[in-house]
């Protein structure tokens, strides 16, 4: 598999505080990589380091196979775009002038592609209005448009839905999906709104206290968070035998508890268990989400 970004034991220390402590992660090409973590977990620091805004205190990272200390890193960085924390725009220029400035800086001709880009982010009709007078959502979209100047194939977005209204969040999601599916851009995105992230990401990295606690693909996550029933029984081995007999998928959690992943007749299950001398104490439906998975994981990591 080809990776856009690979980090190994990446560390960042600010005076006494350790913001990153050995981050190891890989972002596959063409993916939308969701970075999940609570405030202060080190998501933004990781993004800043990867973008070259801050240098790491230890470890290494490579972009498209080029190490950050190599001479060719500047050339590779020209394939990147990013919006970190707040959109970086000139408030005294219009949306078009902002893009023109970025295009000129990159040495690109200011042609129709500027209008196309404005169209793509939905700012085509802003005219000569100064970017400083835009709403937060419009600024965010302009920030993305500036990051997209030069047609990068790796986009880093730090909390792009922060402060957006529900409509803005949907628009942002659609834009990111369009960029990923239509233009093949690899996206690294962090967000607090896990439900929103779950509608986008193809890969996840869970961060806690400066470390990547777990990296999984969306398929693996679905396995973990799919809908299930939790059965509490007096003997989980008897339950396992019954479920095997009924050809039902399950997972044992403890001596008295198991997850059942398929729809089945509760009456039939209770009857069969009763026949084998096992008592069905309770049966509850569990709807595990990315949020509960994250809480379980971080809680586990904290306890561990």
């Amino acid at each position, binding site marked *: 598999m080809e990776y856009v970004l690979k980090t190994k034991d990446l560390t960042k220390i*600010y005076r006494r505080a350790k913001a990153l402590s050995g981050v190891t992660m890989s972002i596959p090409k063409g993916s939308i990589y969701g970075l999940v973590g609570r405030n202060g977990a080190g998501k933004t620091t990781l993004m*800043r380091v990867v*973008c*070259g*805004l*801050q*240098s790491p205190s230890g470890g290494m990272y490579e972009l498209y196979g080029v190490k950050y200390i190599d001479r060719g*890193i*500047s*050339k*590779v*960085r*020209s394939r*990147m*775009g*990013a919006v*970190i*924390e*707040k*959109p*970086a*725009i*000139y*408030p005294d220029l219009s949306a078009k002038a902002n893009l023109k*400035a*970025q295009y*000129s*800086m*990159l*040495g690109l001709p200011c042609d129709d592609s500027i209008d196309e880009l404005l169209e793509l982010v939905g700012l085509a009709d802003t005219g000569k209005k100064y970017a400083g007078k835009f709403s937060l959502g419009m600024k965010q979209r302009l920030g993305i448009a*500036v*990051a997209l100047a*030069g047609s990068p194939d790796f986009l*880093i977005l730090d909390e792009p839905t922060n402060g957006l209204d529900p409509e803005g969040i949907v628009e942002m999601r659609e834009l990111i999906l369009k960029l990923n599916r239509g233009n093949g851009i690899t996206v690294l995105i962090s967000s607090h709104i896990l439900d929103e992230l779950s509608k986008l990401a193809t890969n996840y990295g869970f961060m806690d206290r400066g470390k990547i606690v777990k990296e999984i693909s969306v398929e693996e996550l679905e396995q973990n968070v799919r809908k299930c029933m939790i059965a509490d029984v007096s003997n989980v081995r008897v339950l396992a035998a019954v479920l095997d007999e009924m050809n039902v998928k399950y997972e044992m959690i403890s001596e008295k508890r198991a997850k059942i992943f398929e729809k089945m007749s509760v009456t039939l299950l209770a009857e069969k268990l009763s026949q084998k001398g096992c008592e069905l104490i309770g049966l509850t439906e569990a709807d595990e989400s990315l949020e509960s998975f994250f809480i379980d994981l971080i809680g586990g990591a904290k306890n561990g």
Partner: protein
Amino acid sequence: MADLFKVTFKRAFLSLPMLIGTGVCAFMSSMTSRRCAYANAADGFGEQDAVSFALPDRKFLLCLMLAAAVLPVFFTGREMTNGTVKNKLICGVGRLRFYLTHLLVNIIMDLIVFTAATVPMFIFCPGYFRGFQTGMLVCIFGSILVCVLYVAALSTLLAAMFDHTAVSLIICLGVLFAGVFIADKVSSALTPPENNYTEMTGMQTDPSGRSEEVVLGEKAEPNPDFVGGTPRKLLWSVHYILPVRLLEDCELMLHQRTMTVQQYREQMQEYKESRNAPFLYERYRNIRTMPIAIGCAFIVLCVLGVILFRLRNIK
């Protein structure tokens, strides 16, 4: 680099602070020159003091230096405040390229301001400057120019180190005024231990009964701030790299328009022999090396700026 320079320069040149700064300096310069031209005419009728009151004074030079310091802070500082520096660094514009481009643009901006501040003097008051020897004029305006470059490098460094323009501006102005204060203290410490010799006179009556004034002796005022030994040598080094002193010397030289290089040397000799002004002699002796020292300090500031900016964590 050319593309980055073009965009940066265009933004800087058309910015409001640049237009205001240039306008204010040009206005002040033209007003001073008009006063100067009027006084020059009055001088022709024997009113010699009129010229020295109308000349480009400390306020004018301070205003020029303030503009030279504030413009880079506004321009480079805004890149930091808006976060647009990130767009450049993320896209592979190296920190060295970014810093050097901004330094170059800031120097050009300050040169434009310097031109706006000096050209009107020559336009409105050519008669006054005709009195100067060309070498002397080059020395004076060259020294002012070196000070402008020094201030541009210093303010670029400060602007690139902070995330907010307001913080950079406060620190930059603080550094400027601290420089003036330190220069004053250094000057005071370098003044000889006994200074300002004044003659004590008295009236003497001769046998015929006539009274006349006679010199009874000399009285020297002690300098309580005097510093000797190795610290004095260190203070001389500080004195060398503070543009305030050089500007003061430029101001003094502007008041001596009719002086030729030969006369200048003679005056230096006079200062050397005078018990009253050995410090002045030391200062005048060093006036030719001071622009070189400040030029070196400018280069050190540029290199220091690049090193610090490369190490800086950008938020």
